[in-house]
C-alpha cells in the first residue's frame, strides 16, 4: 500500500512538471514584448525615496505607453531590479537584466558610486544605456565618451557652477563658506568642484570635511562648523542626512546667514522638518511649481495617478527616461542597438522638464540631456525658485533669521 502511494505521488509530480513545461512554453510564445530593464535603489534608507519616486514615474509612463498600444506593435515590459544601495548588488542586477532577461535598453540609476561600478562591469557588453542617475564626473570621464551611453542627470559641475553663480548674485556678498559632504563619489566630486569654483571667485572656505551618510548624530560636526562661524553652510548629502542636519542645527542654535544644500525638494521634506525646514536653499533640477506648459499638463496626470503626493524631480525624470527610450525605438523602427543609438541621438522631445535633446557635455560626455539647474528656497512651507531670475517664482530671503527669532 505504501509503495503504491509513493509511486502515485511521484507520478502526479511528473505529470505536473510536464504540464508546467507546456504551459510555460505556451506563455513564452504569447509573451512577445519589448523588454526594458531598470535598476533602482528601493531598500537603502538614504536612497529609497528617490528610488520609489523613479518607480512611480516609470509606471506612469509604462501605463501611457501600453494603453496607446505599446511600440512596434508590441507591449513594453518593464523589469525593475533593486540595487539595495550596494554596488555588488547593482552590478548583479544590471548583468541579470542584460544577459538573462535580454532587455533592449538599461535605464534608471541613482547613486554615482553604484553607477560607476555597474558600468565598469557591463561595458564589455556595450549595452544600450539611457541612464538617469549619477552626477559624479568620474562617471562622465570614464563612460561619457562611450557611444552606447546616454545620460540625463546634470553632472556635478552643473550643480556647483549654479551654486557659485547664485552666491555671486547675493547682496551683501557672503564671504565665508563651510562645506560638508558625504564620503561617496557624489559628495567628494561635488566638493572638489565647489571648492575650486568658490576659491576662484574669492570666497573663503572655513570648513571642509566629509561625513558618513546615514550617521545618527551630526552635532559634533555642526558644533565644529558653528565655531568657524561661516556666512553660508553648504552640504552635499542624501535626504535622511539633510533632515538630521537641520534638526540638529536648530538644537545647537547654529545660525549661518544661509543654509544651502542639494536637492531639498524630496517629498518628505515638509513632513520630516515642518517649520525647521524653512529658509533652506538648494540647487535642483526641477520643482512642481515650475511654469512650463508641459509641467502643468504633466502635474495634472500625476495628481490623478498619485493623489495627495508631491513629486520630486525624479518622477518626471524617470517618466521622461522611459518615454524618450520608447520614442527612439519608434523612430528607429527597430530594437537593434545601432539603429537605437542613432535614433536616440536625434531625440527632440517635449518633456515635463523642458525640451530633451542630447548634446556633448564639458568633460567628455557625448550624450547629455540636462545641463541647467535652478536654486529653490523654502519659504513658509512652499518651495520657490529664486535663481535664475528668468525662472524665478519668488525672491531670496537673506540673511536667514536666527532660530529664536522665527
Amino acid at each position, binding site marked *: 500500500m505504501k509503495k503504491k502511494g509513493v509511486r502515485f505521488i511521484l507520478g502526479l509530480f511528473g505529470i505536473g512538471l510536464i504540464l508546467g513545461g507546456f504551459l510555460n512554453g505556451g506563455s513564452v510564445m504569447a509573451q512577445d514584448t519589448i523588454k526594458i530593464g531598470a535598476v533602482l535603489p528601493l531598500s537603502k534608507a538614504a536612497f529609497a525615496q528617490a528610488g520609489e519616486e523613479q518607480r512611480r514615474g516609470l509606471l506612469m509612463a509604462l501605463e501611457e505607453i501600453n494603453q496607446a498600444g505599446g511600440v512596434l506593435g508590441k507591449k513594453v515590459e518593464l523589469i525593475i531590479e533593486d540595487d539595495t544601495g550596494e554596488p555588488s548588488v547593482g552590478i548583479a542586477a544590471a548583468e541579470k537584466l542584460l544577459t538573462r532577461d535580454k532587455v533592449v535598453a538599461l535605464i534608471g540609476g541613482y547613486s554615482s558610486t553604484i553607477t560607476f561600478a555597474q558600468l565598469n562591469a557591463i561595458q564589455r557588453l556595450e549595452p544600450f544605456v539611457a541612464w538617469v542617475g549619477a552626477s559624479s564626473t568620474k562617471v562622465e570621464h570614464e563612460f561619457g565618451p562611450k557611444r552606447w551611453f546616454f545620460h540625463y542627470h546634470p553632472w556635478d559641475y552643473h550643480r556647483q557652477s549654479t551654486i557659485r553663480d547664485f552666491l555671486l548674485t547675493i547682496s551683501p556678498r557672503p564671504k565665508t563658506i563651510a562645506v560638508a559632504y558625504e564620503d561617496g563619489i557624489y559628495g567628494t566630486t561635488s566638493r572638489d568642484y565647489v571648492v575650486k569654483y568658490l576659491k576662484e571667485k574669492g570666497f573663503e572656505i572655513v570648513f571642509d570635511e566629509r561625513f558618513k551618510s546615514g550617521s545618527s*548624530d551630526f552635532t559634533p560636526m555642526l558644533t565644529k562648523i558653528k565655531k568657524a562661524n561661516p556666512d553660508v553652510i553648504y552640504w552635499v548629502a542624501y535626504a535622511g542626512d539633510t533632515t538630521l542636519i537641520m534638526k540638529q542645527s*536648530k*538644537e*545647537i542654535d547654529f545660525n549661518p546667514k544661509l543654509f544651502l544644500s542639494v536637492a531639498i525638494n524630496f517629498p518628505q521634506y515638509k513632513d520630516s522638518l515642518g517649520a525647521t525646514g524653512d529658509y533652506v536653499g538648494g540647487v535642483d533640477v526641477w520643482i512642481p511649481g515650475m511654469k512650463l506648459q508641459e509641467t502643468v499638463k504633466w502635474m495634472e496626470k500625476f495628481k490623478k495617478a498619485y493623489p495627495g503626493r508631491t513629486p520630486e524631480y525624479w518622477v518626471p525624470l524617470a517618466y521622461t527616461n522611459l518615454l524618450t527610450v520608447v520614442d527612439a525605438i519608434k523612430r528607429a523602427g527597430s530594437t537593434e542597438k545601432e539603429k537605437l543609438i542613432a535614433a536616440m541621438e536625434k531625440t527632440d522631445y517635449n518633456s515635463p522638464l523642458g525640451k530633451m535633446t542630447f548634446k556633448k557635455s564639458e568633460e567628455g560626455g557625448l550624450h547629455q540631456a540636462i545641463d541647467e539647474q535652478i536654486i529653490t528656497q523654502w519659504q513658509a512651507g512652499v518651495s520657490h525658485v529664486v535663481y535664475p531670475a528668468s525662472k524665478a517664482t519668488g525672491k531670496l530671503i537673506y540673511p536667514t533669521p536666527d532660530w529664536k527669532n522665527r
Partner: protein
Amino acid sequence: MDWASFLQSLANGILIAGLYAAVTLGLTLVLGVMGIVNFAHGELVMLGAYSTFWLFTLLGIDPMLSIPMSGLILFFIGLPIYRFTIRPILKDPPLNQLLLTLGISIFLQNLAMILWKADSRAVITSYSGMSLHLGMVHVGLTRLVTFLIAVTLTIFLILFLYKARPGRAMRAVSENNTASWLIGINVQKTYLLAFGVASGLAGASGALVSTIMYTFPMVGFKLSLKAFCILILGGLGNIPGALFGSLILGLTESFVGTYAPEGSGWAEGISFMLIMVILIIKPTGLAGTRRE
C-alpha cells in the same frame, strides 16, 4: 581654550550616550541572564520605533507617551519570540545561537521593508526642535529627555534585579541555573520573563529613536553595532557597565567629531576602533563581566 565648544561637545556626547544606553540595556540583560548574544535586539528596537511612529500617525499619540506603550507592545512580541525560537536553542553551541538570532534579525529587517517600505519616517511634534540654553551650551529637549529616561530605566532595572523577586531570580539564574532550579526557582519562566523585559526595554528605546532620529528598517542594525561596542566597553552582562560604556562611546564620538582633523568622517567608525583596542588589551571588557 574655547569653552563654549568644549562644553557643547561634552553635552553632545552625554546626550547621545543616553540613547545608546537605552538601546543596550535589554541586550545586556539577555546576555547576563541567559548567556545569549541576541543579534536581533536591534530589530526589536526598530519595531519599537515603528510602533511609536504608527501610534503617532494613526492614533495621534504623543511619542513621549508611547514610550511605555511601545515597551509593552514589544514585551508581548518578545514572549513568543523567546518561546518558539530562543528556548529550543538554549543548550546549543554558541555558533548555532548566533546564527539563529542573526537569522531573526534579517527576517525582521526584510519584513519591515516589505510592510513599510524603506523610506525613513520621522515623528515631529510641537516640541521637536526645542532646545534649552544652559549658559554656553545648547541642549536639545528631546535628547535631554531621552538621556533622563535612559538613566531612569537603568535605575529601575537595577532596583528590579535587586529588590523584586523575579529580578532576584534572574540574578540567581545567571549565576548558576542548576542551583537555582534546585532551590525551586522556575528557570524557564525566569528566562521567559527576562527576554520579555529586554524586549520591552528595546521597544521603549525604539520610541526614543523615533523621536531623536528617524526610523527605517535598517535603523536597528546600525544601533546594535554600537550596542555591541558598549557591551564590550562596559562588561558583558554588566548593567551599570552599560551606562558607563555608553558614556565612553558617546563622549569619544563627540570629541573625535569636533576636535580631530577630518573628525566628522572618523566619528562613526570610532566604535569599531574602540572594540578592537579593548578586545586586545582587556577581553572581558573595561568594567569586567558579571560572571567574574
